[in-house]
């Protein structure tokens, strides 16, 4: 459990940024993971009064405030109309509804947790993070950056007709994932992301192009080659070898799901 010397509900982003320059300061997103550690926090920075708990849908993008809960993303009807409803699929396995009401997207993405389902899903899309000082940074780049004292403000997802699919495997429901995989197809080009390796999610370097009308066997071979290009680790949930085998299976399933999608638009519907 952490200890906190001072708690500041900031009124502006500038105030949050200034406070965050001290090493002892910490921004509290949802605080779910943070509370499991034993950090001694000088100033806890709370951005919950900054109106960053909203999802804005414009003509060209979804703009998600850093303090938006994972549950709000899961239940957002507009988001569900895009990417074959992948965002909902990525959220639904994360513990329970109360947890997802409490955890924030900013906390999950800024920390670039290896176990993060949303990080894997968002990497498969055309996603940009908006930092207070650093400006707009593509998520592909942000995910490999070192931690700094900047403040994540919003996440921008380009609204396009990208097809996408999400897969994850857990040893038990509500546990951390053993492996996550997201695949997107834009203009005929596949992007494969693998997370919970157990390290940070990575965009896999696809070794070659998948045939235009692939058979299931083609997809299996392709997925196997993708899994060969990614490094995996061992932890208490699974070995590196097991994860590699899982990666091939999950990537194959995700690609097959995309291939089976008759329309790039999701079927719609509300959150349940």
């Amino acid at each position, binding site marked *: *459990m*952490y*200890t*906190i*010397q*001072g*708690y500041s*509900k900031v009124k502006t982003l500038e105030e949050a940024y200034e406070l965050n320059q001290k090493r002892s300061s910490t921004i*509290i997103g*949802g*605080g*779910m993971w943070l*509370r*499991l550690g034993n950090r001694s*926090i000088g100033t*806890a920075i*709370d951005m*919950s009064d900054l109106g960053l708990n909203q999802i804005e849908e414009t003509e060209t993008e979804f703009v998600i405030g850093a303090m938006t*809960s994972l*549950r709000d993303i899961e239940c957002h009807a507009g988001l569900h109309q895009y990417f074959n409803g992948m965002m909902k699929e990525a959220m*639904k396995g994360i*513990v*329970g*509804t*109360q*947890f997802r*009401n*409490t955890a924030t997207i900013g906390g999950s993405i800024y920390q670039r947790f290896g176990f993060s389902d949303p990080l894997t899903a968002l990497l498969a899309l055309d996603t940009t993070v908006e930092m207070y000082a650093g400006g707009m940074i593509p998520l592909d780049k942000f995910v490999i950056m070192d931690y700094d004292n900047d403040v994540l403000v919003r996440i921008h997802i380009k609204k396009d007709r990208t097809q996408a699919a999400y897969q994850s495997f857990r040893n038990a*429901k*509500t546990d951390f994932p053993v492996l996550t995989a997201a695949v997107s197809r834009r203009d005929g080009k596949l992007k494969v992301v693998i997370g919970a390796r157990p390290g940070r999610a990575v965009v896999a370097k696809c070794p070659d192009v998948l045939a235009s009308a692939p058979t299931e066997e083609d997809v299996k071979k392709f997925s196997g080659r993708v899994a060969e290009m990614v490094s995996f680790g061992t932890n208490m949930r699974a070995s590196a070898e097991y994860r590699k085998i899982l990666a091939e299976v999950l990537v194959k399933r995700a690609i097959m799901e995309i291939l089976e999608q008759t329309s790039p638009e999701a079927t719609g519907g509300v959150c*349940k």
Partner: protein
Amino acid sequence: MKIKIWINDKVYNDHIEPDTMLIDYLRDKGFKSVKCGCDTTNCGLCTVYLDGKTVLSCSVPAARAAGHRVTTLEGVAKEAEEFARFMAVQGAEQCGYCSPGFIMNVLAMAKELENPTEDEIKAYLAGNLCRCTGYEGQYRAIKNYLAVTRANYKLFEKGEVIEGVR
């Protein structure tokens, strides 16, 4: 630090330590239905409503809840009692320790989902752990509760509803 917070529609003004968690603050104020089970954000026992949404009070700093409305099981006692009777009829409680958080989430689900299927019920309640029962009794209680309280709930056969439970 000073906070002003509404708990079950009553306002409280207090001084707290900055690292006081909402669960500890609520228990200090006498809301003993809010209990700590796992302390690792997994079990759902500490569930309360923050501005109407279910949250895990073990992970919410009390300072964050300042200026907002918190509802505990004591604040929805009438509805909780109604559902608890369905639990009792089904023998769905054994030790009963998980029931407060479970009931809070069931009531939230009943408001949010119009006509949930069994899978949707299970998915919604995945964050509430019970180590006694295996959940079947709870699911029966929920099904009967929904069937009795909603005329249009059609998932279950008429005969499954336990008459007179209300």
